[in-house]
């Protein structure tokens, strides 16, 4: 894709109406929690508004003009999201979010294929969304869950991977971890998992917003992600599934829209992806997800990745100057290996107190266990504060973070 003109983060920021509003204390909004959810550009908000104002109608069944328009926009959005991760539209199932996408695989594929004695392989740094569905599947089937271990920096230890993969039915792994931001070496892991005969599921919640993703090159079987972390609305997500698997596996939810024919005693199902989309879909949000993809593609994932590396590098430098106050950054601390996420603590101050003080300066960070309780336990961290960066963050945001941290250090006399 050719970019006629590179945009600056400042210009990008102007596309997001929320940044025009000061906080209740009159501070500039310094939003450093995009790993939880991203802000939305005007074009995405407009897409929702236009749908409801101009062509709100149910899809796939209506014969009238606005119903045809809605169906067309809905399927066009699917095609854009599919192209964005390099799959066919028929391989992209709409879901509510990453969590539902993973559950779809765990229930539909898992129920049909996982049996007592099988193993499911995860890593020690998965989000609860990529852990709990597999625990429940294991409980239902009598399978066992195993974990690829991590070292003290939070990097995967791959020495024993081939043994762990022996007899493994499913490998499910985050592309980018949400607590430490580590980009996982999928290029080495996936071929080995496939050679071992395991189904490969990738949790792309933190990767699809930030890195160019090519599911064909990755050669995974499923790839799950959420619109709300990549400029789109909440309530819509996607699951890429290899076409042959989507065809052979049973449906997840059932009801209207996912059927071909229904008699009182039997039903034949629609073809994928609609086979997995029971009931009226989240039409407006799917269409707006398409607009978010347009925005991301226009800026370019290459630019976004480089920008986040720059900001992360700057933030690491800036936070190092607070080391004298007891500031500690966790994880790999190398922007080439992380996806714009920094987890840290300020001395012995609880992360919630840090986040509360940062909030008074308009700086939004997350504090707590980040839905990775087993990881926190393993690393011996009670909680951490986490700053995460996206295309609209600037050096000024990082400076505001550093100044607010100095304020916290002053209050706690560090």
């Amino acid at each position, binding site marked *: 894709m050719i970019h006629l003109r590179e945009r600056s983060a400042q210009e990008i920021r102007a596309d997001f109406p929320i940044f025009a509003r000061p906080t209740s204390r009159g501070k500039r909004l310094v939003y450093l929690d995009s790993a939880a959810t991203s802000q939305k550009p005007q074009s995405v908000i407009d897409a929702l508004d236009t749908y409801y104002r101009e062509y709100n109608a149910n899809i796939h069944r209506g014969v009238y003009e606005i119903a045809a328009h809605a169906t067309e926009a809905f399927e066009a959005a699917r095609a854009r999201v599919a192209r964005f991760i390099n799959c066919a539209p028929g391989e992209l199932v709409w879901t509510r979010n990453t969590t539902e996408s993973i559950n779809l695989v765990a229930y539909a594929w898992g129920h049909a294929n996982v049996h007592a004695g099988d193993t499911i392989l995860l890593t020690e740094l998965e989000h609860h969304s990529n852990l709990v569905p597999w625990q429940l599947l294991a409980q239902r089937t009598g399978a066992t869950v195993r974990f690829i271990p991590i070292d003290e920096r939070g990097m995967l230890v791959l020495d024993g991977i081939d043994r762990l993969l022996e007899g493994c039915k499913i490998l499910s792994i985050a592309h980018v971890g949400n607590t430490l931001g580590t980009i996982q070496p999928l290029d080495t892991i996936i071929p080995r998992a496939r050679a071992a005969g395991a189904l490969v599921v990738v949790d792309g919640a933190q990767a699809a917003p930030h890195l160019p993703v090519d599911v064909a090159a990755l050669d995974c079987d499923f790839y799950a992600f959420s619109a709300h972390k990549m400029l789109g609305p909440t309530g819509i997500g996607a699951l890429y599934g290899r076409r042959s698997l989507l065809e052979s596996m049973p449906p997840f939810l059932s009801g209207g829209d996912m059927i071909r024919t229904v008699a009182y005693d039997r039903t034949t199902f629609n073809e994928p992806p609609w086979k997995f989309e029971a009931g009226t879909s989240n039409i407006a949000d799917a269409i707006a997800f398409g607009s978010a993809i347009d925005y991301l593609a226009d800026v370019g994932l290459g630019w976004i990745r480089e920008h986040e590396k720059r900001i992360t590098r700057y933030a690491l430098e800036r936070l190092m100057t607070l080391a004298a106050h007891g500031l500690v950054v966790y994880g790999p601390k190398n922007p080439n290996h992380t996806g714009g996420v920094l987890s840290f603590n300020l001395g012995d*101050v*609880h*992360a*919630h*107190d840090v986040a*509360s*003080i940062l*909030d*008074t300066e308009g700086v939004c960070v997350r*504090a*707590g*266990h980040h839905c990775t*309780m087993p990881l*926190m336990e393993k690393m011996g961290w*009670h*909680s951490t504060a986490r700053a995460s960066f996206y295309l609209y963050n600037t050096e000024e945001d990082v400076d505001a973070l550093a100044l607010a941290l100095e304020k916290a250090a002053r*209050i*706690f*006399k560090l």
Partner: protein
Amino acid sequence: MEDFYRDYILDHYRNPRNFGHLENPTVSAEELNPLCGDVIRMELRVDGDGIVRDVRFSGKGCAISQASASMLTESAIGMPLEAVARLSKDVVLENVGIGISPTRMKCAMLGLRVLKTAAIGSLAAWPDEE
């Protein structure tokens, strides 16, 4: 909110009063705040007249939960156990002196909930849910 981190709050956080354990507590309770993983344990010694003679708290967490638990132990000593069981969130709001942001209310009220649970003998509701 910045007002919350006043010197006397930080003092209770850094030097918690009645921190530790009792030899043979009459009643005790422990609770986790699932939002932040903070834990507080309260142990009470009650005399034959039903008066709370001693309280110890233990646990770890943010300045708000720890300081308000520390202050609460001072409030509870000398009170009838029955009155402890009926304490309202006002005791915490009076102790800490200023408004707490809604997002941190659960942290501030954790100690009270544990104290009341110990006094009642079954799980108390979060004081801000009453």
